[in-house]
């Protein structure tokens, strides 16, 4: 059967194609496209393992969970978009003759995850005072028949075509296929809201992900004292989606102007940025002495790297002086950002973003040193502005 990548089916002279042939043709095209996507998006096995490994993930902001701020009770929205779920088995996993329809094969393990429109999920009520709860949203690929239509269908006993209702579309859309389960239970529906167990604030933990599901967000549900107004805030959500890039790697380039006047923390201003969609970043002026800055990049990254150069376009340093940047540290594997998350939404951050302490991300810290003759100084105020070019790479 033409069910492998780049196969295509043949119809011979004077042969009347069957419905199975028609289905097979589309199945073959579909298998080719998904195989190609699998090979283009596969990732390394690790830093020292160059083997290509198939992976699951999401494109851009597809399936990104955001808080609903104009709606009560508590709710979140899942952004429409696309992902790919690599799974060899599971509910509605790879299968030949889906729904016993001849030729309707879905054999590639890289299955589409589609959300055609914004999906709202109402969150369980806030926990008692003194406690907090961590919920999660997880998803899996799915498919089902849709688009019922009345079509003439051959009736073998009579030899006539009789109108009959047939589903004309096999869809992967997960919209409105939402379930809710409590922690300790396995999710069932393609989009699943899993309610955690409230615990003393600070000790709350998210429920475990279900087998065969991809966790896309954690939701911190604070009690009515800590979260007044009954509306979730961006800081209550953590985006834990793995994003899809060719070979699992992406690059971002940023140009900043950073003011280092006086003893205040340096103030960054983003001049130019080229960062793929789905990734948040913020440069924080973290330390006055030496104009130290910290770049936060969100995402559950496996590796993160960066390269920083500094210049002084204003040319207000003395002749003979030299500026050079020093990378203080790179935390190259993602971690929960914790207190850093709040710093991303302060006056010394650019852009100012609102993320939560459970948000996974990576961190680069750096500063500039000025050589004045034989001496080495920190560039407080001279020059007034530093121009940084930062190139960073991450991989999932």
């Amino acid at each position: 059967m033409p069910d492998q990548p780049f196969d295509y089916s043949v119809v011979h002279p004077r042969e009347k194609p069957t419905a199975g042939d028609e289905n097979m043709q589309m199945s073959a095209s579909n298998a080719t496209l998904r195989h190609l996507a699998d090979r283009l998006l596969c990732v390394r096995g690790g830093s020292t393992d160059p083997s290509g490994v198939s992976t699951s993930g999401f494109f851009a902001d597809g399936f990104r969970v955001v808080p609903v701020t104009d709606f009560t009770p508590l709710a979140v929205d899942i952004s429409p978009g696309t992902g790919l779920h690599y799974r060899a088995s599971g509910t509605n996993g790879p299968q030949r003759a889906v729904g016993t329809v001849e030729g309707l094969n879905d054999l590639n393990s890289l299955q589409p995850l589609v959300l055609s429109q914004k999906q709202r999920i109402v969150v369980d009520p806030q926990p008692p005072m003194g406690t907090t709860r961590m919920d999660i949203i997880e998803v899996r690929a799915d498919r089902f028949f849709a688009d019922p239509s009345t079509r003439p269908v051959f009736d073998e006993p009579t030899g006539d075509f009789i109108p009959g209702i047939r589903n004309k579309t096999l869809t992967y859309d997960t919209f409105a296929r939402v379930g809710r389960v409590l922690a300790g239970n396995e999710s069932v529906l393609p989009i699943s809201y899993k309610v955690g167990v409230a615990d003393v604030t600070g000790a709350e933990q998210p429920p475990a992900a279900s087998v065969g599901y991809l966790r896309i967000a954690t939701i911190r549900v604070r009690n009515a004292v800590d979260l007044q107004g009954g509306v979730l805030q961006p800081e209550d959500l953590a985006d834990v989606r793995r994003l899809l890039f060719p070979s699992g790697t992406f690059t971002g380039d940023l140009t900043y102007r950073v003011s280092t006047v006086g003893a205040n923390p340096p103030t960054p201003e983003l001049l130019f940025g080229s960062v793929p969609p789905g990734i948040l970043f913020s440069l924080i002026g973290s330390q006055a002495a030496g104009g130290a800055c910290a770049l936060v990049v969100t995402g559950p990254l496996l590796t993160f790297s960066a390269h920083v150069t500094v210049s002084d376009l204003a040319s207000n340093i003395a002749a003979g002086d030299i500026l050079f940047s020093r990378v203080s540290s790179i935390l190259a594997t993602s971690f929960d950002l914790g207190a850093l998350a709040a710093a991303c939404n302060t006056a010394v951050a650019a852009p100012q973003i609102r993320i939560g302490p459970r948000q996974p991300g990576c961190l680069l810290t750096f500063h500039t040193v000025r050589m004045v003759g034989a001496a080495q100084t920190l560039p407080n105020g001279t020059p007034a502005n530093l121009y940084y070019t930062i190139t960073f790479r991450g991989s999932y």
Partner: protein
Amino acid sequence: MQGPFERLVGNYLEELLSSDYNAAQAQQERSLRFLLEQVYAARVADDNATGAPAPTGFIGDAFRARPTSPLGNSILLRRGLGLQYAAQVGTDLVTQVPGFLANTSGVADLSPYHPLVLLNDEVIALDAPPAQPNNRVDLIEVRYRRSAADNQQRKQLNPPGRNKVTVGMNKTVSPVMDGLTQRFTAAQDSTSPIAYKVGVAGANPVVPPTTPGYQAIANILVRNVAVNPGATITDTAIIDLRPYLFPHGIGEAYARVVSTTGALIPASVTSVNAPPGVQIASVARGVTGARTDVYVIFGSSRALNADVSIQSAPAAGAPGFILPQWSIINRTISAQDQIDLGGLLASPQPTLVTIGQPVSVVSLRATTQNNGASDDAPAALGALVLYHLSLKLLRR
């Protein structure tokens, strides 16, 4: 139809012919392969911006020859996808590929960019090792496959009798190469999609010639049992000859190398952001100047551009800054390289490579600069020097 992206149209009340069904699929695949051709075309040369014809190559670690596990006198080819550019000698598959019924029309291969498809790891058993004192070099080569497959009994119109008769016919055009390995001698031209070509044993064995129309992907050094008593094939016996496919011929990679000064110990390679199949390893070379050689192996390609920066600051209390110095050489793995990479100064340890494997070597060194004076003593450099390598992998 003249070119890619054109579509066959079925008109109102028109009875579609078998050739229409076939042509529609052929056209769809032509469009997809045309698109890949555009994506992978590289410029002709540094001083020539023209796009060269789409290159033959492999995505990630597809078709990469590896030792089997457990080790044996055998290898495996990693599953994946390659593309082979082969000028068309005709597009009609019915005349080129045996197995289709006469007069079948529209079954065509309209793109010169052919998929090389391996769905599962392919294990290849090798000929027994030669007698002492000889050795042997074998060759693995591949070419695209197009075959008629999936024979079925189908009904076909019989014009003389105005009835339908059951006829056996192949229903699939398949490029899948799984299980299609055959063995050939050095003097023979290969004929199977995956060919294992056995070299001639000798004191100085030579590689069998590549069959016209084939792409060589690996050389295997088969040592005699006196040298290799277990008759096993390891990574010290496999030369990866696969050309890589990168969009527009340029791939990107990143690695961090942590070199220790004042002690001759391995410089760890961490945070590798690189496409699958790319191998990066280091060998520490000296105490002073934190000298390290970084080996980058990506098939037969061995050209890269590197940008190196240093994260470290000078030793505590020392003024100035640290500058990286580096050089790049493209060559093949030497006997000394093999010893070094397999030794105690390598990272990862051991890194097994084969003499003759194309490689790019980036030699790193660090030095402090302080108002015109340089110093590469460990006391000036500090305990660790952290190099950041930003690499462009070029298909040359």
